[in-house]
């Protein structure tokens, strides 16, 4: 399975992360996205007329949408990540997969503007990003009330992988995550999954430093 990949792309990272979490090996084909703009060159435009990455190739299957790639990887290697055991859960996963495109268009575009000098209306992008974060925060709070730590279930699904990267990288675009305690908790839960991998700007969880021990008479 060949992934046309860019190390700094959160969308490519979704696919790398999914593969790592379920133990699938990808054949990585690096794309000179910046500064070379190779994704807009003839070879990749022939493969994906949208001119975007990631692109996943497996035999004669060519996928150009990261959500479809997550579905494909999970269906092949770890179907429990599809979260399709009930009608409600199936729909919820689909809801978050679609929602994840709003994160790309807002927080992702804000990040490209701030980091790689892409044109864009930064104030509007941040505003849309914040609206999406508030919706996600509300969704996660409801999940907590249901006793579930992840977006669609008490166990992680492709919905979490689809939403996590652009959310975790929001500060790269100048959008703070400080106001969202449920998102921060969820981010910790995702980062503590077995097989989790990092990307630049998304750090692994470091061991918590031991709690300070107060001796009698101190404080």
């Amino acid at each position, binding site marked *: 399975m060949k992934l046309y990949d860019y190390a*700094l792309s959160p969308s490519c990272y979704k696919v790398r992360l999914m593969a790592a979490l379920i133990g699938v090996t990808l054949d990585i084909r690096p794309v000179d996205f910046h*500064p070379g703009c190779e994704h807009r060159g003839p070879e990749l435009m022939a493969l994906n007329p949208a001119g975007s990455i990631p692109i996943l190739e497996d035999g004669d299957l060519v996928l150009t949408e990261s959500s479809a790639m997550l579905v494909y990887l999970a269906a092949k290697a770890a179907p429990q990540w599809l979260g399709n055991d009930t009608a409600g859960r199936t729909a919820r996963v689909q809801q978050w997969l679609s929602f994840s495109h709003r994160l790309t268009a807002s927080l992702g575009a804000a990040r490209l503007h701030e980091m790689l000098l892409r044109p864009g209306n930064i104030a509007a992008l941040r505003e849309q990003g914040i609206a999406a974060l508030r919706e996600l925060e509300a969704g996660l709070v409801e999940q907590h009330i249901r006793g579930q730590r992840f977006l669609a279930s008490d166990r992680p699904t492709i919905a979490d992988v689809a939403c996590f990267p652009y959310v975790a990288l929001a*500060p790269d675009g100048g959008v703070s995550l400080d106001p969202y305690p449920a998102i921060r908790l969820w981010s910790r839960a995702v980062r503590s999954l077995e097989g989790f991998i990092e990307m630049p700007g998304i750090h692994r969880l470091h061991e918590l430093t031991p709690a300070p021990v107060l001796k009698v008479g101190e404080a």
Partner: protein
Amino acid sequence: MTRNTMIDGWYPVSLASQLDAHGRRTALMGEPIAVRRGEDGNAQVTGGNGRDLPACIRYGHVWSSLGDPQKPLFAIPEADQPGRRLVEVGVVRVRCSPLRAVENFLDIAHFPFVHTDILGAEPHTEVQNYKVDIREDEDEVWATQVKFYQPQAAKSAEGGITTEYMYRVPAPTCSVLYKTCPPRPAEWDVITLFVQPLAEDLCDVWPWMALFDDETPMTDLIHFQQTIFVQDRSILENQIPRLLPLDPGMEIPTRADLTSVAYRRWLKRHGYTYGAQLVAQ
């Protein structure tokens, strides 16, 4: 306020390979500038009031100045050595002081924590003794004999090695790093950080490299360096205070940041204070 002595310096303002007749609009120290390729193929840079600014093309980039540069752009003799791959890493914008971007580049102690499993790894966090001086003849800051254990020092490195570094600061917003070259032990790889000061707390960073490595595809070399630099970016954007403090009283020097101390002292001596925080004395 005293005259900004950094006005007469050279700064990177574009990748030379991406410059066309249409050009790009950018800024230097708060002044909007326009950079384009002229009909003669040379770079043309225009200041905010339409005046022509000095321009030259070197090390893959267009360089310009708002003032009157007293010296040509600093030399990197290795850049002209045959057989090196010249890597244009591309611009990354960082909301930080241009001086802080350079200072972070000089700090090896952060490798195991920020570039975990690439440029450093716990428990190999110790920085061994090394030498730092301000070379009076060249008027540059140099750190030499810097040794550090690295899990993956370069794209061409197989597994962990103890890497030797030399750091050089030839201009207030530029640093050149010389680093053990795995395929050619007698030579040094050259890794630079060229910083374009947009404002006192905003900069465009243009990393560039001149490497001996015939194996690794160019895109992999670019991605390796971008990965490392973007790992730094989030740290840089969260540093407090945002400007680089130049009062020695504000830092507790450890062995690792002797280079930083020398860099700050050198900045202060020259009045290179754009992006610095001067504490009243």
